[in-house]
């Protein structure tokens, strides 16, 4: 069992706190240019860019796990399609709780 490389739940606001660290975020895909970058809206309504090539077609909501390499960008390692409907409010709440009072349960 290994807890050495956790991926922190972040939204755009929290992303800046974890520069260079492994993070996970759910984005609503807005546009994806073929050049290896996808722009999306994070669960708190702000835009972030995800660098990397998705392995296949993307659904409306995508979770990316990767390294935070800019205050508004993530270099993705793993892409997971989260479908076309998702409650971003709950996910955003998780981001706040996992970085707040209940941080010890997550990282």
């Amino acid at each position: 069992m290994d807890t050495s490389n956790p991926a922190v739940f972040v939204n755009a606001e929290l992303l800046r706190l974890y520069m260079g660290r492994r993070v996970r975020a759910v984005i609503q895909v807005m546009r994806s240019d073929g050049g290896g970058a996808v722009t999306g809206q994070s669960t708190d309504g702000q835009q972030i860019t995800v660098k990397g090539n998705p392995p296949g077609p993307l659904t409306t909501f995508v979770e990316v796990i990767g390294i935070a390499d800019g205050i508004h960008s993530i270099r993705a390692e793993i892409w997971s399609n989260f479908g076309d409907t998702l409650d971003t409010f709950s996910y955003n709440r998780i981001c706040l709780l996992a970085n707040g009072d209940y941080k010890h349960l997550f990282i």
Partner: protein
Amino acid sequence: MFGSSQLDSFSGGGFISSQGADPSRTSAKSRDSPPLLPLTIKQISQAIQSTDEKSNFVIDGVDVNNVRLVGMAYKKSERVTDVAFAIDDGTGRIECIRWVNDAVDSKEVEEVSDGMYVRVHGHLKGFQGKIQLVVFAIRPITDYNEVATHFLECIYVHHCYRKPQSGHSVSTPSQTDVPAAVSASSSGHNSNQFSGNLSIDGLKGIEKSVIDYLEQPSSLAQEKGIHRNEIAQQLKVPLEKIMDAVASLESEGLVYSTIDECHYKSTSA
């Protein structure tokens, strides 16, 4: 049976075991070991192995029997009688084993592939210093709201078991520290969820003052208890209000009458 974890009742969402979903039971009495706990792998890594022969693990002060995890499966390797894989839920990774005994089992694991989000139910087992999960049921996730919901349940259950046991605990503690946006709606949510099961939080001001007064060492020291007139005098509250408060506290099991109907003592003595 194993695969279902529907949240039928609001008393702890089915995870906090209480005898017969009786809403007036206090949190102090509902700490029997729960049948199923939603956990993060980080929580499991912090578990203490209990020293009795059952070799159970203890998390947040409760014996852990079965656990539920939601995460990404990977490193799946099918062997003859079992399938081994690892689950990564973002907080850590844990090795899992799913014993395959019949066609139903093998069909279940066939649906799982690497990189897929799954929900597993299983039992924790220590093996050569590591903790592994013996999986009873594994299901791919189709609605990804389950991911957020699972973590919310982990937080909720953890919060319930960490609440202080004392008879006069403060009201739901999360409100002071959590940022305003979170606490504004979570306070409403909390009072709905908690008022049925953990009734101490629903104590009104007067009841709280009465129980506080009765729990002072000077009050506890008196065998006969305290006369309600004295409580009324000390707290400067009208007697009818004291009587209401005492009746309510009595039904909660927090105070009892001693030599006659007018004298009361706290049950936590």
